[in-house]
């Protein structure tokens, strides 16, 4: 039941705290992002991590996207976004730690709606991480259609990494 290449990306509501270039230390007001409205007509790179501030996500996954986001945009990506099951304040703080500014949109799926709609959620209760966490994956979504999907089969970063995505753009 998990989403696959050729499917239409689901229409769900995510939240985020926008980056304010004029006031980078301010914690802005959370905003809603409706995926169909925000992604329509665009080429979107979306990568998901099981947890902000966790070792693999912070050391192996996020930094490469920060390094390669400009290359992705010059290869036609209109929007690069990171999503996790953490809430929008946590995602904002994590993005700040990586100095993402407004280069990568830090999205929250704390209600688990996206994970459930994609069929890419996992139960983290055994590790005390909550019942609905996103798996590690990366997607390229072109005008709402999924054209690439890489779901990490094991711990570590391969098909969901920035280099893998860049090669597919």
């Amino acid at each position: 039941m998990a989403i696959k290449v050729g499917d239409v990306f689901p229409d769900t509501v995510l939240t985020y705290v926008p980056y304010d270039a004029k006031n980078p230390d301010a914690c802005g007001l959370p905003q809603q992002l409706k995926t169909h409205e925000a992604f329509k007509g665009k080429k979107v790179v979306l990568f998901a991590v099981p947890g902000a501030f966790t070792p693999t996500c912070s050391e192996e996954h996020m930094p490469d996207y920060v390094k390669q986001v400009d290359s992705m945009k010059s290869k036609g990506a209109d929007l690069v976004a990171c999503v996790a099951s953490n809430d929008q304040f946590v995602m904002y703080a994590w993005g700040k730690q990586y100095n993402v500014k407004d280069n990568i949109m830090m999205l929250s799926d704390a209600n688990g709606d996206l994970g459930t709609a994609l069929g890419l959620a996992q139960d983290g209760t055994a590790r005390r991480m909550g019942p609905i966490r996103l798996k590690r994956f990366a997607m390229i979504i072109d005008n709402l259609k999924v054209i690439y999907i890489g779901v990490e089969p094991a711990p570590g970063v391969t098909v969901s990494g920035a280099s893998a995505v860049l090669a597919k753009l």
Partner: protein
Amino acid sequence: MTIKEGDTFPQVQLKYIPFDTADPNACKSPQVLDTKKDFAGKKVVVVGVPGAFSPTCSIQHLPAYVTKIKELKAKGVDLVVCVSGNDFFVMSAWGKSENVKDNIIMAGDANGELGRATGLTLDLAKMGMGSVRLTRFAAIVDNGKVTHLAVEPDPTDVTVTGADNILSAL
């Protein structure tokens, strides 16, 4: 079914990442905090917050507990625990950004176990923050018994759950 003063504090296992004084940037292995075993024979202040890194929690609530830790300990508090519906990695990172060091145990209740056991939950699904979050509260737990419980009537504010109020209640 909400916990009240006089009740025994429920037994749940929460996880936290201990602070390493030798290497403050290290991410140590998570430890389990058992709210029955680890609270036995101790006077504990438990502070519940809706969200790590969120404005009220970061500006108005946690910092006062950090600055008043010596006063809390001088009044007989053995342990201060801050807990939220975030996971323990997030709590550890938040603790680092608030310079908590090893003064406060930053515990995560991502499974919602403490929330459900105490009834002190907040449904923040409308804000996109999940439906089983902890509300803002502060409790004094003396040898496992809740001797003082303050629940913020408006969780976006800090009044009865603030460090000064808890100090007065000790």
